């Protein structure tokens, strides 16, 4: 038994090394890191940060980036009340219909609606952004290697291009973007938003807040998942102990 565990762990270790090695790709630039409250076995989303992050998304990012998988009603996860959610949804306009005369009409958003997209389609988005397509942000934290730290680094990674670096027209220099040329101009500037809770809106603070919000947007069930995981694993530990005891007892009369 012990020997088996030893051997299994050697195999596991080797596999982990080979797989991690396999996946460790990227620009090779060390990312800026922050500690995220939702990391770890018991981590939960920092509600205040996520709420501020929503504000950053709405006032800064939403002009170009959609969030098309997230519906307003799910904001309840972040501690928004029903009334607040209704009010947020109402600000957006959607095409409804057809009505009884077969006409489409504009209607105010409802909690079940997804966040509105700033552009009608990809072509329209490219036309307004110098040919670049601002990606949807619903899954952005899970869709880039480095995850939260990558997004955070990217948002604070703007600086002047080093000497000799050929920057194409309309592009910006970013230390963490692959190839360092990014079509998105630096989105955050000091006091770009005014936080209701009085938190100073530094670039670093906003970058962190919007990262927390988008991490939630990408993985809204994280808390349910970890919560269930703890119960399941405790149950399984108990079961293993029980089965081991039964196994010992049943096998004891052998030989």
């Amino acid at each position, binding site marked *: 038994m012990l020997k*088996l565990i030893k051997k299994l762990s050697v195999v596991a270790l080797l596999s982990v090394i080979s797989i991690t090695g*396999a*996946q460790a*790709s990227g620009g090779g630039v060390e990312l800026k890191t922050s500690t995220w409250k939702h990391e770890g076995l018991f981590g939960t989303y920092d509600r205040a940060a996520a709420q501020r992050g929503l504000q950053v998304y709405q006032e800064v990012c939403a002009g170009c980036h959609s969030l098309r998988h997230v519906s307003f009603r799910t904001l309840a996860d972040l501690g928004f009340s029903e009334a607040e959610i209704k009010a947020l949804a109402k600000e957006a306009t959607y095409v409804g219909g057809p009505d009884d005369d077969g006409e489409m009409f504009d209607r105010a958003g409802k909690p079940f609606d997804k966040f509105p997209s700033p552009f009608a389609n990809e072509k329209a988005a490219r036309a307004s952004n110098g040919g670049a397509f601002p990606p949807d942000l*619903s899954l952005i934290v899970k869709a880039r290697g480095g995850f939260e730290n990558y997004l955070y680094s990217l948002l604070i990674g703007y600086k002047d291009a080093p000497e000799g670096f050929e920057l194409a027209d309309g592009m910006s220099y970013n230390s963490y973007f692959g190839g360092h040329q990014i079509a998105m101009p630096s989105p955050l500037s000091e006091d770009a938003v005014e936080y209701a809770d009085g938190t100073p809106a530094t670039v670093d603070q906003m970058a962190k807040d919007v990262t927390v919000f988008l991490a939630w947007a990408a993985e809204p069930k994280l808390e349910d*998942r970890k919560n269930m995981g703890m119960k399941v694993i405790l149950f399984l530990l108990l079961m293993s102990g029980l089965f081991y005891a039964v196994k010992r007892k049943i096998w004891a009369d052998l030989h």
Partner: protein
Amino acid sequence: MSFEPKNPMVKWVEARLPITGMLHHALYEYPTPKNLSYWWTFGSLAGFMLVVQLITGIVLSMHYTAHVDLAFDSVEHIMRDVNYGWLLRYMHANGASMFFIVVYLHIFRGLYYGSYKAPRELLWWLGLVIFLLMMATAFMGYVLPWGQMSFWGATVITNLFGAIPVVGDTIVTWLWGGFSVDNPTLNRFFSLHYLLPFVIVGVVILHIWSLHTSGSNNPTGIEIKDKQDSIPFHPYYTVKDLFGLALFLILFSAFLFYAPNWMGHPDNYIPANPLVTPAHIVPEWYFLPFYAILRAVPDKLGGVMLMFGAIAVLFALPWLDKSRIRSARFRPVYKQLFWIFLLDCVILTYIGGQPAEEPFILIGRIATGYYFAHILILLPLVGMFEKPKPLPASISADVLSKKSSDEEASNA
């Protein structure tokens, strides 16, 4: 210990269809060597994972939409709006990896203890067929979420068939159902991804049937000689397997609940885009050794043949291995070679995930060469020249001698 039902209903059925007796024989009285170690648990774990994949997969397919414009969104719908959809999907995605982990361990156990040797050649073959079917199923399943890796993985792998001389391009068009990976491809992959698991169930039944005909191999590699050597499957191995299952489920849960995307690739959370090729197209980890073999050859056709050859040679294993001794416990040279071979496979896995550049190309070629050299050259040679250790008289003699030496060790 033949099966004599007392319940009149069971009796009535048994006289007309002896299914209860068959199950009783297979799951209850099946005479099993008394010395099976925990390495023998992985077979039943693989069976368990097949059931998990079937159940989660059937429920997922109730919410999934196989269409290029809707597939990605329907997966997100499952993750966000379907009750416990996130649990089902993560269970299914990580379940595939877990299935491969236990099957790989099951295969390596067979290699170590010579479980493929007569009279278990067909058993081994059926296992390899299951493995091939699993790979096809897993590959097509990975395409279904229609993310970037789904799309480009499908493109790369289906294009391999283009290497076949003369009819290659025609075959690729036929596989795609068009002139590129598109909606018809996604639809047929979904259809086959749903079908193949049931084919696997069929082959698993044959695999177990064949197993129960020749009986389980065991760590000594010698056959059951008399009643003393065997114990009924139930309760001894049912409880041992249940304990193994509980431990395995803890590992599964650790991934499922705490690192559900660790074995996935971030790019697959980007919707498929035929116009943008990802920087590195990497298959799922369980394909990496074969991907490394594929890329070890500069010629496309050669690479494809070598990749399929890597599995084909395993079919010949029962005849390539000339040693009449099964278990590596009594084969001092083979035992060393086994661990080197395992290490070689781990190296191939690592190389498969690296970009095609030096020094990875060279290492990949050496490791590929060694993979084939081990099976085609070393294995037959070792069988001829190796001097095996003396075998125990019987399974129970081996168990008793081990027990007494353990006691001596604990007394000392």
